[in-house]
C-alpha cells in the first residue's frame, strides 16, 4: 500500500490551528512524495491521460533537478525543509460549494477570523476561497457569465473546458522550468482558471482567498489566466495562514497570457504564517500593445522565493512590477521581478520597496534582459529599502543583460534607516515614537499600497501595523 492515496472519508483526527475540531478531511492524508502519490492525485481527480502523463513527467524533473544553489534563491539549502514530511494532497470536502449557504460552517468561521466583512463578501465579484487543497466555495456573478468570462477553480476548468485548458496549460511555465515548478506540476491542485473573451472588460477585481489549514501540508495551487485580445482584468490573490510549530510549504505556479491590446493586473498579498516556505513561480506572456502588471506584496512566510516575470514578446508590450516586502524576525523575503524584453519598443518599470526589522532580511533579486535587436526598449528599476533596527538586513541583486544598443535602461537603489529627522519632526507634533515610525513606514510603502483595491489597502495597512508593533523602542 505504501503512500498511495485512497479516497477515504473517515475522520482524520487532525487538530487545526484555529480550533476547528469539527473539520473533516475527505481522504486520509499521506506524507511524502512518490510516483504513487502523483498517480493517486490524478486518479482521485479522474483526470485525462495527458494530465497524468504531464504530472509524471514533472515528477521526474523534480527528482532530477538539484536544489537551486546559484544566484536565484534565498539559500533554501540552509533551511531544514524536509520534503518527505509534507502532505502533497489533502481534500477537505467531497462536494464543491455552490452558494454561500452550502459552504461548511467551519470554513465560514475561518473566514470570520480572517476578517472578511460580510459587505465585502457581497462586493467580491466572484469569491474563490481555497481551503486546504480544494476550492470549496465558488460564485460568479451573473453578469460575468453573460460576458462569457470563465472563472472557476482549475480542476473544474480541466473537466469543463478541456480544449481551452490544454491549449495554454504549461505553455508559459513548462514543468521543467525550475525545481519548484516541477513540484507544482506534479502535484498541483486547485487554483483559479480565468478566461476573458475578446474585448471584454471586467470592471471589478476578481478575488480569491487562500488558506493553509493542515499542519505540514503543502499547497500547490495552479492558476491560469488567459486575457484575449483587448480584454481587461484585475485578479487579486490574498493569503493568510495560522501559525504552526513545524514547517509548511506553499509552491504555486501562475501562468498568464495577455494577448494583443489586453490588460491584466495580478495582485498578491501574501501573509503566510512565519513557518511557511513560499516558493512560487509566476510568469506572464505579454503580446503587442498589451499591458501586464504584477503587484506583489510579501509580508508573511519564513522564506519567500518569488520573482514574478514579464515576458514582453511583441512591439508595444508594457510590463510593470510593483513589489513590496516586509520581513520581521526570522523571515527572509527573497522577492523581486524579471522583465524580459524580447521585442523592440517594449517598455517596463520595476518598483520595489522593502522594510526589514528584527532579524528580518529582505532581498530584491531581479533581472532585466534585452535581446539583440530589441531596439527602443525602455526599462527602469527602482529599489528602495528601509531598515528599522540593528538586527535587520537588506540586499539588492539586480541583474542586467543588455545586448542591444538603442535602449534606455536605468537602475537605481537606495537603502536607508528610519530617518531621525522625520521621527523627531513627527514626535515634536505629539506622536509617540512607535506611532511616528508606523506613519513613516506607511508613507514609505504608500506608492505601492495606493495601487491596491481599497479593501486590500486597508487590510495591508492593518497588517503593516501589526508587523510594526513593538518594533521601535
Amino acid at each position, binding site marked *: 500500500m505504501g503512500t498511495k492515496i485512497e479516497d477515504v472519508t473517515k475522520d482524520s483526527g487532525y487538530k487545526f490551528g484555529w480550533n476547528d475540531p469539527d473539520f473533516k478531511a475527505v481522504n486520509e492524508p499521506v506524507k511524502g512524495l512518490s510516483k504513487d502519490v502523483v498517480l493517486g492525485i490524478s486518479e482521485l481527480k479522474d483526470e485525462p491521460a495527458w494530465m497524468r502523463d504531464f504530472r509524471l513527467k514533472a515528477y521526474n524533473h523534480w527528482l532530477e533537478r538539484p536544489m537551486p544553489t*546559484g544566484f536565484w534563491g534565498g539559500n533554501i539549502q540552509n533551511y531544514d525543509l524536509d520534503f518527505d514530511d509534507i502532505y502533497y494532497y489533502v481534500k477537505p470536502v467531497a462536494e464543491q460549494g455552490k452558494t454561500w449557504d452550502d459552504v461548511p460552517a467551519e470554513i465560514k468561521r475561518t473566514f470570520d477570523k480572517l476578517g472578511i466583512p460580510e459587505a465585502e463578501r457581497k462586493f467580491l465579484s466572484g469569491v474563490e476561497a481555497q481551503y486546504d487543497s480544494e476550492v470549496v466555495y465558488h460564485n460568479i456573478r451573473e453578469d460575468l457569465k453573460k460576458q462569457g468570462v470563465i472563472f472557476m477553480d482549475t480542476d473544474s476548468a480541466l473537466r469543463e473546458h478541456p480544449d481551452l485548458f490544454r491549449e495554454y496549460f504549461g505553455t508559459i511555465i513548462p514543468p521543467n522550468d525550475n525545481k519548484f515548478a516541477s513540484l507544482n506540476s506534479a502535484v498541483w491542485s486547485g487554483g483559479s482558471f480565468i478566461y476573458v473573451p475578446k474585448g471584454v472588460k471586467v470592471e471589478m477585481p476578481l478575488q480569491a482567498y487562500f488558506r493553509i489549514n493542515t499542519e505540514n501540508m503543502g499547497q500547490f495551487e495552479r492558476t491560469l489566466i488567459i486575457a484575449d485580445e483587448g480584454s481587461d482584468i484585475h485578479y487579486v490573490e490574498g493569503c493568510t495562514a495560522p501559525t504552526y510549530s513545524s514547517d509548511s510549504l506553499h509552491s504555486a505556479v501562475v501562468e498568464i497570457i495577455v494577448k494583443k491590446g489586453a490588460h491584466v493586473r495580478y495582485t498578491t498579498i501574501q501573509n503566510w504564517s512565519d513557518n511557511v516556505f513560499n516558493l512560487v513561480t509566476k510568469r506572464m506572456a505579454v503580446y503587442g500593445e498589451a499591458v501586464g502588471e504584477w503587484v506583489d506584496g510579501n509580508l508573511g512566510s519564513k522564506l519567500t522565493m518569488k520573482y514574478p516575470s514579464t515576458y514582453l514578446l511583441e512591439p508595444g508590450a508594457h510590463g510593470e512590477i510593483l513589489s513590496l516586502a516586509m520581513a520581521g524576525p526570522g523571515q527572509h523575503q527573497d522577492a523581486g521581478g524579471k522583465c524580459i524584453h524580447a521585442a523592440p519598443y517594449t517598455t517596463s518599470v520595476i518598483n520595489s520597496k522593502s522594510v526589514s526589522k528584527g532579524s528580518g532580511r529582505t532581498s530584491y533579486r531581479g533581472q532585466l534582459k534585452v535581446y539583440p535587436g530589441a531596439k527602443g526598449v525602455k526599462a527602469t528599476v527602482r529599489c528602495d529599502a528601509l531598515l528599522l533596527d540593528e538586527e535587520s538586513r537588506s540586499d*539588492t541583486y539586480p541583474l*542586467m543583460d543588455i545586448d542591444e544598443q538603442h535602449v534606455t535602461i536605468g537602475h537605481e*537603489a537606495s537603502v536607508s534607516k528610519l530617518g531621525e529627522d522625520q521621527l523627531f519632526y513627527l514626535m515634536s507634533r505629539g506622536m509617540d515614537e512607535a506611532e511616528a515610525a508606523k506613519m513613516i513606514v506607511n508613507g514609505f510603502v504608500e506608492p505601492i499600497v495606493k495601487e491596491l483595491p481599497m479593501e486590500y489597502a486597508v487590510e495591508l495597512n492593518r497588517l503593516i501595523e501589526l508587523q510594526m508593533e513593538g518594533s521601535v523602542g
Partner: protein
Amino acid sequence: MTGTVTALPSLNRDAVEALSARFGEPEWLLKRRLEAWRLFEEAPMPDPLSEEWRRTDVSNMSLDGLAPFAPPRKAIESVAGLPAELAVFLDENEDLAGRIVQHDSDVVYETLDQDLAAKDVIVTSLQSAAREHEEIVRDSLFTAVTPAEWKYLGLHGALWSGGCLVYVPKGVEVELPIEYVAGLTAERTGIFPHLLIVAEANSSVTVIQEEISPEITGLVAGAVEVIAREGSNVRFIDVQRLGKQVQNFTTMRVLLSKDASFQGILLGLGGELTKTRLDVRMDGEGSETELLGLVFGDGDQHFAYDTRQDHVAPRTESDLLFKSVLDDSASFIWNGVVEVRRGATESAANQTNRNLLLSDKASASPTPILEISAYDVARCSHGATVGPVDDELIFYLQSRGIPADEAQEMLVDGFFAEVLERVPSERVQDRVRAVLDTKLGR
C-alpha cells in the same frame, strides 16, 4: 637573447622550483610557492554556468602550451634600453619619485629618489625585497590576497616574479608618483606581476601601475596588495594597455586601518579578456574609499570587473564610479558589491555605473549589489544605466551648429572626462586620451 629559439619551459611543479632557484629565494618562500601550486592544481576552472562567469567565454581561458616564465632579461641603464616594442609606451624623463620596470619575468630597472631613500622609503623589486627586506615581505606578502581564492591566484602565488614593493615609513609623504611597469614581450608566456604597497601610519603615496605589451598572445595574472595603516593615504592608478590577444587576470585587495583613505583608478583599455577583482576592506573606523573605473572596449574585447566595497568598521565611506564605452562587439561586465556589515554604523556607500554603447553588437551587464546588515547607515545607494549616446544631447549640440558626428565625439569625450579629470597625473591622462583617440579612429 630574445631571438634565440629554445623549448619553452612547461607549466608544472618543477617550473615552480626552477623559478625559485633562479632567484635564489629563501626556503620559506619556496614553501609558499609550492603550497600555492597545490591550491592551483586543486582549484576548478571557472564554472561557465555560475552567475559570475556566465557572460564570459571561459572556453578560451586555456593554460595549454603556456610558458610559466620567460628567459632572464638583463638589467638596463634607462628606460630607453628597453626593447622598442615596450619603450614606445614609456617616456624616459618623467616626474616620478621612483620607478620599477619589469620586463617579462624580471625586474630590469629600479630607481628611487635619493631623499626618499634617505627617509627609509623602499621602492624595489619584490624579488630582491624578499632577501633584503625579508621581514616586511614575510609579514605582508599574500596577507591581503591569498592563493586559495581562485585558480588564477593560486597560479600567481606559485609563479609570481619580479614584482614591486613600495614601503612608506610612518609620517612620510611621497609627493610624486611611484611607477611600476610590467611589460610582456615573450610569446605564449605568462607573467605574474605582484605589487605590494605598505603605507605606515600617517604616510601618503601615489602608485601608478602599468601593464603593457605589443600585439602578442600571452597571460598577465597579477596581484595587488595594499596595506594602509592608520591615517595613511594611498592613491593607486592601474593603466592596462596590453595587446589585444593577451588575457589579463588581476586580483587587488586593499586593507584600510583607522582613518586611512584609498583612491583607486582602474583604466581598462587593452587585453582580449580582462578579469579584474578589486576589494577594499574598510577594517578601520573612519576609513574612506574612492574607486573610479574607465573602460573602452572595441573589437572583441571582453572586460569583467568585480568590485567589493566592504564596510567592516563604523563611519566608513565609499564611493564608486565606473564608466564604460563599448564599440564593435566589445562586452563589459561589472559586478559591484557594497557590503555594510553588522556594526559598521553610520557608514555611507554609493555605486554608479554608466555604460555607453556605440555599436549594435556591444553589450553591457552591470550588476550593482547591496548587502546591508547595519541599521544605522548614513546612506547606501547605487545606480546603473546602459544606452547609446542620448539623442537629446546630440540635438542640443546640433542646434548650436555642431555636426552630429562631431557632437557624438564631444559627448564620448565628455563621458570619459568625469573619470579622467580625477586621475591625479596629467601624464597618465594624456596617455589614456591618446589610446582613446586611437580607438576612436582619430
